[in-house]
């Protein structure tokens, strides 16, 4: 780990005139995983949207030291920030393969792209079986796999995941988190993950931030949050 890949200072976000985030600070270490935890409506999804420039935001956002707070969504994506949005963002009318090709849209090295196709198919063999199928007909878990794969085809340096466990069966969730851990470990892709399932997220993450009504309530190493009594009672449930 060599310094943070993402530094966020005093992040504020707005939906029209309504402010949803009030000065959030956190970092993602290079090769590390940071989890954003919190209850419904705390502002976790908004934080990711603010980082991607999907909502109006203020504050300092630096990717490898470079300020990206004023860039457009597509410019940020082109810098290697892959955002897997809530609801998975599937192109439902396109085939699985076309969805994946869109992930590699801004890249031109054909041989490398082909290798990355093989790579994601080795993580998620089910997608390979369903290559020609219309993406909207996939199950929820398969669509989540597709969304992660599409993001991986961007060859991201930072992968932002918005509730990858949402609405999925426990076994599928387990599988997806196992693969995310492998991707982080084997390929060194840094991750920023938003989760309601705090226990799962803390297993994967090395750092975590607990957001309450648009503010960071607690932040620090995952171990520390896991040990924190308030976190344990409210979010881990034991």
């Amino acid at each position, binding site marked *: 780990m060599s310094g943070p890949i993402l530094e966020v200072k005093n992040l504020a976000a707005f939906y029209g005139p309504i402010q949803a985030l009030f000065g959030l600070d956190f970092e993602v270490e290079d090769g590390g995983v940071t989890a954003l935890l919190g209850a419904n409506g705390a502002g976790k999804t908004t934080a990711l949207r603010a980082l991607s420039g999907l909502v109006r935001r203020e504050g300092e956002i630096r990717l490898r030291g470079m300020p990206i707070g004023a860039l457009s969504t*597509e410019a940020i994506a082109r810098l290697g920030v*892959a*955002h897997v949005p809530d609801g998975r*963002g599937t*192109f439902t009318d396109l085939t699985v393969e076309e969805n994946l090709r*869109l992930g590699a*849209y*801004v890249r031109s090295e054909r041989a490398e792209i082909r290798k990355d196709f093989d790579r994601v198919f080795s993580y998620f063999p089910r997608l390979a079986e369903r290559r020609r199928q219309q993406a909207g007909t996939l199950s929820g878990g398969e669509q989540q796999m597709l969304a992660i794969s*599409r993001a991986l085809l961007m060859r991201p340096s930072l992968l932002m995941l918005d509730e990858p466990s949402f609405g999925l069966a426990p076994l599928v969730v387990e599988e997806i988190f196992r693969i995310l851990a492998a991707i982080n470990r084997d390929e060194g892709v840094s991750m920023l993950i938003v989760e309601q399932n705090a226990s799962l997220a803390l297993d994967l993450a090395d750092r975590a931030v607990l957001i309450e009504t648009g503010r960071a309530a607690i932040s620090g190493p995952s171990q520390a949050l896991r040990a924190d009594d308030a976190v344990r009672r409210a979010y881990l449930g034991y």
Partner: protein
Amino acid sequence: MSEFLHQLASGLALGGVYAILALALVMIYQATQLVNFAQGEMAMFSTYFAWKLMDSGWPYWRAFAATVVVSFFGGLIIERVVVRPFAKAPVLASIIVFIGLVLIFNALAGWLYGYSIQEFESPFSGRPWFGNVYMSAHESGAVVVSLCVLALVYGFFRFTPLGLAMRAAAQNPTSSRLVGIRVGWMLAIGWGLAAAIGAVAGMMAAPIVYLDPNMMGGVLLYAFAGAVLGGIDNPFGAAFGGFAVGVLENLVGAYVVGDEVKLSVALAIIVGVLVWRPSGLFGRRLVARV
């Protein structure tokens, strides 16, 4: 019988024109859920541009190619300058913009080129093709050109990365931006392509309906009827609908209502489809879960 076949065949020729103009309408509709009422006038203006080039001595196909290219950039610029600022405005604002474009192009053409009817040269002249006595050479040529345009557009959207990105941008703009697609530009390119296709439609229609600033009014109405008939969210359906309307218009005009009121056939088709099958023959029925 031969009279019937003749009507059928020339219906196909104009139907091809309706089909590609319908395709242009669908292209913009898919991305914005708006029908560009100015598509016809833009095509008319392009056709005048081609006519002017030929008038100054350019050979047909060179003028044709130049017009298609210039129309592409013209459409692109119109989107960037006139349509874009209203992207977030209510639907009615966009419709007013389209009507404004109709008036502007119509008046501009009249001012620049006059309102008198001009002949427009056809590249396909001489004897009918393949001994097809039911169609003039131009009618056969127009059908072939229309089919070529349809094939090219299909190939573009199906097999090129840019075509895929445009489909993606129309379908899910947010996800598209998240993979780095410049969605705003995709829309501008869509307008450019629609204008280029429209230019072809205009140049194929002009030898049949003659060139004047109001030449595309009826043509656009038929194209719209075709798009609605086939399903306005389905390019294949719209193209099919265009051909169907061309044939229907000609047959009904010749045998049922007469030439004078045959434009109302288009209206009847639009109303009929909207009443009995709002999504068109091939359109997707949208069902909202509340």
